[in-house]
């Protein structure tokens, strides 16, 4: 903090956003909507408007023009009265609520959002030859423009990295007819997410497409000729001639501002934030790649460097900065979907995290691979690899809301889960329940109304820097619901009645196409003790205490959409300590080519035997 501040040039705004990536711009637009009169300023040193960065790979193969990359129509900032300052935020003076820009100019704020994104990790600093021309990282628009300019001169290229970004780059180069050498440090592709069968499937496809894949191989030096790349040397004592080296070894959050703040800001693999994106410093928020949010399954803080996560975080941060009381969305579990050549990859949750505690079913029929991780009858992790992309957001909803998958397990495993049909039936069940009981259904009533069931859920505080984990096992018997074919008539009657009682909030003109049910906003929730209970259970008690979060609350969709209201508790997951494995039961990880459910049989048998 030795910089001299030009105090006479201090300007200010209520909401200041550092960075104009998608998280920053989304936050600005949402804040404008929520706070029409506040002054909103984006400070960025980027020389172009916000773009759809995931679409850069389409730009790389000339499927998109630069204009088509724009995330919002040109002129959006001006139309939304969002001021854009082309400068870099150098320091934060949190005690006096102002930031210091390039050149020593001060800028005051009431709320500050750090949305500075991430940078490509690149090759190690001490790697010989790392500064030759022709070594690129592909992260920003300028990187892709640079690569496209070079493509006509390239015959051989080396791609370094073992994740989705690397394979997307390989596919791009193959598209342009370039010979590709792909170096992967691990012995499998994307080892943090894919198991070996899935990795083998991907690598086999990419080899067939023409790439040379080198596993357990790293670059130990780059050889140049007159300043340009001429080849790389690997740890396998190979020399691979090439004119281009593309480094796809991940990204690192830009947390410089956290260290250049006059108050200590908690930072570990990103700036630690809570569910409302608040950092540990008052009035300072973080969103996008730079923010480390808590994973409800693992409890660990980590950035989610994905498009959808950045958009959502921008909206939530905007609500918090604008002083809006509303926010109904929560981050939930990680979700990642992308195309890997001919294959579509989807991961929801952390499938590998549950390898010791969950029942794992796999299916590799019809050129696809799916891995389903289940604890009791709840989905906790999902991996799909195949020619078609499942409805990932619906599967994420199943996990986030803790739906029972008893009746859709096989469909999930076979990749035939019809989310529209499933959730439509859920709404019908809720309506039926209202017709036959005259009551609004508790959220759990939506899950399997035809039979009694045992439900297990947990609740975890998601405060940023608090960690009280609570869990409870609760057995709930659901009343059998008559499946009268005339229920639609009854539903309409019930809706009319309930509307007169003013217990249901109907949507505004542009909100309601289909009826969604669940708890009305003003309806008091039943406590667990008031619900009918089944004493005997085939489930083993889970090792925690606390109250169970109601799951499947479809009313979360009923409020005005952009409404943003912090949900105090948003996780139903239990983290099993390794020492509790015996209590929980043996982990079963088997391959089920026919997707039979015999894993359950063994599991229940083990429980009966008292294991």
């Amino acid at each position, binding site marked *: 903090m030795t910089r001299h501040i030009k105090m006479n040039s201090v300007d200010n705004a209520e909401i200041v956003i550092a960075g104009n990536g998608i998280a920053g711009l989304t936050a600005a637009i949402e804040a404008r909507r929520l706070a029409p009169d506040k002054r909103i300023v984006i400070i960025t040193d980027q020389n172009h408007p916000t773009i*759809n960065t*995931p*679409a850069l*790979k*389409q730009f790389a193969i000339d*499927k*998109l023009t630069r*204009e*088509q*990359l*724009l*995330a*919002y*129509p040109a002129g959006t900032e001006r139309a939304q009265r969002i001021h854009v300052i082309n400068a870099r935020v150098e320091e934060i003076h949190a005690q006096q609520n102002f930031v210091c820009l390039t050149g020593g100019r001060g800028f005051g704020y009431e709320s500050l959002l750090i949305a500075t994104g991430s940078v490509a990790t690149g090759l190690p600093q001490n790697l010989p030859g790392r500064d030759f021309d022709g070594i690129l990282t592909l992260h920003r628009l300028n990187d892709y423009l640079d690569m496209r300019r070079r493509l006509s001169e390239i015959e051989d290229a080396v791609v370094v990295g073992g994740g989705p970004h690397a394979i997307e780059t390989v596919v791009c180069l193959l598209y342009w007819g370039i010979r590709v050498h792909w170096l992967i440090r691990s012995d499998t592709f994307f080892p943090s997410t894919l198991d070996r069968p899935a990795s083998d499937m991907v690598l086999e496809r990419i080899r067939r497409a023409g790439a040379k894949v080198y596993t357990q191989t790293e670059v130990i030096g780059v050889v140049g000729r007159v300043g340009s790349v001429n080849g790389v040397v690997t740890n396998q004592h190979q020399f691979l001639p090439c004119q281009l080296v593309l480094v796809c070894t991940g990204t690192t959050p830009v947390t410089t501002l956290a260290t250049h703040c006059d108050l200590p800001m908690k930072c570990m693999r990103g700036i630690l934030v809570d569910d409302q994106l608040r950092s540990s410093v008052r009035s300072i928020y973080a969103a996008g790649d730079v923010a480390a949010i808590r994973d409800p399954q693992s409890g660990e803080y980590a950035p989610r460097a994905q*498009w*959808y996560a950045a*958009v*959502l975080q921008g*909206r939530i941060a905007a609500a918090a900065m604008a002083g809006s009381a509303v926010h109904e969305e929560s981050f939930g579990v990680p979700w990642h*979907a*992308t*195309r890997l050549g001919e294959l*579509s990859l*989807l991961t929801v949750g952390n499938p590998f995290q549950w390898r010791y505690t969950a029942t794992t079913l796999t299916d590799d029929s019809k050129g696809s691979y799916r891995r389903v991780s289940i604890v009791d009858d709840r989905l906790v992790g999902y991996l799909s690899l195949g020619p*078609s*992309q*499942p*409805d*990932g*957001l619906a599967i994420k909803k199943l996990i986030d809301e803790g739906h029972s998958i008893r009746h859709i397990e096989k469909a999930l495993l076979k990749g035939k889960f019809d989310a*529209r*049909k499933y*959730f*439509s039936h859920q709404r019908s069940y809720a309506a039926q329940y209202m017709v036959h009981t005259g009551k609004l259904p508790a959220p759990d009533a939506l899950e399997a109304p035809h039979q009694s069931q045992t439900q297990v859920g947990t609740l975890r505080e998601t405060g940023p820097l608090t960690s009280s984990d609570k869990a409870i096992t609760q057995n709930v018997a659901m009343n059998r619901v008559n499946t009268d074919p005339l229920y639609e008539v009854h539903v309409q009657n019930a809706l009319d009645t309930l509307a007169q009682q003013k217990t249901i909030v109907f*949507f505004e*003109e*542009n*909100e*309601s*196409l*289909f009826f*969604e049910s669940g708890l009305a906003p003003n309806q008091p929730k039943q406590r667990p003790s008031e619900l009918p209970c089944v004493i005997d259970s085939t489930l083993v008690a889970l090792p925690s205490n606390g109250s169970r979060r109601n799951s499947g609350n479809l009313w*979360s*969709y009923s409020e005005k*959409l*952009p409404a943003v209201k912090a949900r105090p508790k948003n996780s139903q997951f239990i983290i099993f300590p390794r020492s509790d494995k015996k209590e929980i039961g043996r982990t079963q990880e088997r391959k089920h080519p026919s997707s039979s459910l015999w894993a359950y049989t063994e599991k229940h048998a083990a429980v009966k035997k008292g294991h």
Partner: protein
Amino acid sequence: MLHKTLPQIAQELHACIGCNECLLACPAVTGSVSIDVLNRETLSGPISVPVARFARACYQCSACVAPCPVGLHRDAMMMWLKVRMLRSGWGE
């Protein structure tokens, strides 16, 4: 046909990465409709003439669904856009 609710549509629109694959696969797309404008007008605000023309031309063939790299449902979004058009008087 079973469709998605508005909150689900909004969630999918927020997850759209703007790769344009859905429009490239569309046999009915007319004129120059950009994905950012289409996304914005699907959800709220006034509907421009090119978007309205495109929505009218869409016959829900679902050719746009399979190419989406993140598994979104442009057909459901288009259905919602059609509903918005009807409500705002474009269908009259």
